[in-house]
């Protein structure tokens, strides 16, 4: 990379300023504010606040409901991440075999990616509509009454299914281009060295996809934790009740519905720590260790 040298310190500062201002205003300031308010107990009606130290955190981790949601979020994340990656990988391997580089197919699959999360949630709501949703009718064929928004498991299922559906195309595109960047001659060498197709996949193709895979793993965990907010919101229709929800949604529910800004802030800080940890893993371990060339 070429290094530009500035004789005057103010020019680079001026050039960086807009970016820094945006980061400061939209990220550091609210983050700092969240950290601060996580140590206070806010009066629900806005009449001042009391410093409670780590009180909000303590009550958070003693709160059974919070732990239950954390547990659900864990499973939600594991399931969504695993199936989004696995389905996308299977599709990519199949597609790679048939259509080396066919663009239309890729574009078609990419469309789902362009669907905004709330819209995806809305589609799920339609698919699972109580009286005429096609998927509800499908389950009815087997004599099962599917009730999104009423039955915890059914709602969870709809949320998970929608979240996976929405994420598969992204993973697919990355996996497909990862597959196509494996040199043809390397695959051919493997074809001569190993007669078993699954053996070739696990010993050559899969390890060569690992950099893509780890990158996607982090992306998918982040997605399942945070970006599914819109889907969760639409599916539970803003009526948490007995419905499953993820930690991010809980932050919103407590902060804006329950007016518990302190507790909600403490939850955000926990999530921020999680993101930091993920980012750290990505940069420190993954990016450094999984590189072949």
């Amino acid at each position, binding site marked *: 990379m070429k290094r530009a040298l500035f004789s005057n310190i103010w020019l680079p500062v001026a050039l960086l300023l807009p970016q820094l201002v945006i980061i400061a205003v939209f990220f550091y300031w609210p983050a700092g504010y969240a950290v601060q308010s996580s140590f206070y107990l806010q009066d629900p009606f806005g009449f001042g606040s009391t410093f409670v130290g780590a009180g909000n955190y303590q009550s958070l981790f003693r709160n059974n409901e919070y732990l239950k949601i954390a547990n659900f979020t864990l499973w939600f994340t594991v399931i969504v991440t695993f199936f989004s990656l696995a389905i996308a990988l299977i599709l990519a391997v199949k597609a790679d075999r048939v259509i080396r580089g066919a663009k239309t197919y890729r574009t078609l699959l990419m469309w789902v990616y362009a669907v905004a999360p709330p819209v995806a949630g809305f589609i799920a709501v339609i698919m699972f509509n109580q009286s005429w949703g096609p998927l509800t009718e499908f389950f009815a064929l087997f004599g099962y009454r599917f009730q999104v928004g009423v039955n915890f498991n059914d709602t969870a299922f709809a949320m998970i299914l929608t979240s996976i559906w929405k994420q598969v195309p992204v993973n697919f595109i990355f996996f497909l281009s990862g597959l196509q960047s494996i040199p043809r001659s390397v695959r051919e060498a493997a074809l001569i060295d*190993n007669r078993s197709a699954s053996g070739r996949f696990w010993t050559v193709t899969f390890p060569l996809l690992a950099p893509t895979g780890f990158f996607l793993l982090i992306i998918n965990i982040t997605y399942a934790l945070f970006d599914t907010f819109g889907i969760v919101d639409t599916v539970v229709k803003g009526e948490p009740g007995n419905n499953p929800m993820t930690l991010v949604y809980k932050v919103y529910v407590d902060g804006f519905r329950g007016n518990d800004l302190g507790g909600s802030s403490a939850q955000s800080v926990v999530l921020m720590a999680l993101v930091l940890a993920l980012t750290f893993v990505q940069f420190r371990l993954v990016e450094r260790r999984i590189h072949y060339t």
Partner: protein
Amino acid sequence: MAVVHFDAVQKVYPNGFEAVKPASFYIEDGEFVVLVGPSGCGKSTMLRMIAGLEEISNGVLQIGDRVVNDIDPADRDIAMVFQNYALYPHMSVRNNIGYGLKNRAVPRDVIAAKVDEAAKMLNLSDYLDRKPSQLSGGQRQRVAMGRAIVRDPALFLFDEPLSNLDAKLRNQMRIEIKALQRRLGVTSVYVTHDQVEAMTMADRIIVMNGGVIEQIGTPSEIYQSPASTFVASFMGAPPMNLLEVTRADTGLRLADQILPLDLPDTGAELILGIRPEDIIPDPNGPFSIMVDIVEELGAHRLLHGRLGDQSVTVHVPKDYTVAEGVLRFAMPIEVLSFFDAASGQRVSR
């Protein structure tokens, strides 16, 4: 160790392009055959059909006593060295070399012994734990060789294995590969577009052009009696001089001289072929050329000039003093080749 038998083997790609016209030939056990020809002539296609990486459209291919048309690459008992080496980037050199054996359920200790032996043979012993990305081009090339030889296959296939190396390394590896093949005695098919590699390595050369086999023969047959004007001009640097001649009552007319030759008169126009080193400078010789350029090559010189209105190259030893201008020379009749001007095919004398 195996013979290879091509019986009217043809390749038509799915887009309808006929990359290899029906070809029939036979490769002897232990023979080193070089497939040579210009870019796009179908050499790689031919080799890849032997490997099983490309389907055979028509005809029968036999390796040893098996018809292999429908046999998977892994079951053909072949090993291939690719142009860009095709090493597995995530495996150490040791695992790269041993991979093919591991998948054939060879016991661990046997693999280890074979890998060590191959590594010693190829001077790779110090690099066994490195990844391919930590090796030089020449070392990668050796790993690719090692991967092929540990397999102890019936047939080696090489697709331009040296073309990514610099000239010096290429010369060295050329000799090493040839020596290795001699020692192991494994039948080999080697693709190159470098005619020096073809001449120096081959027991027999197959010259291809546009999907057609132009000639199959030993290097000296190919060099001394090319089967067509294409082979004559493709093999040899500088290429054979090709000169138009016309028939006269007493022989063939070249420029203002008559060659006293009695070729059967088929009425066809003829082309005379002569290697640059077969032209003998002789102050009393019957022919004369106008030398335009003298090319100094150290061990010898090349004189480029014109005979009448046709260009000619003459190869002279380094102790032969030359100057630009008129050079008289003679041509021994027995070294001349003749070709049909229309078809380019060799005309027998």
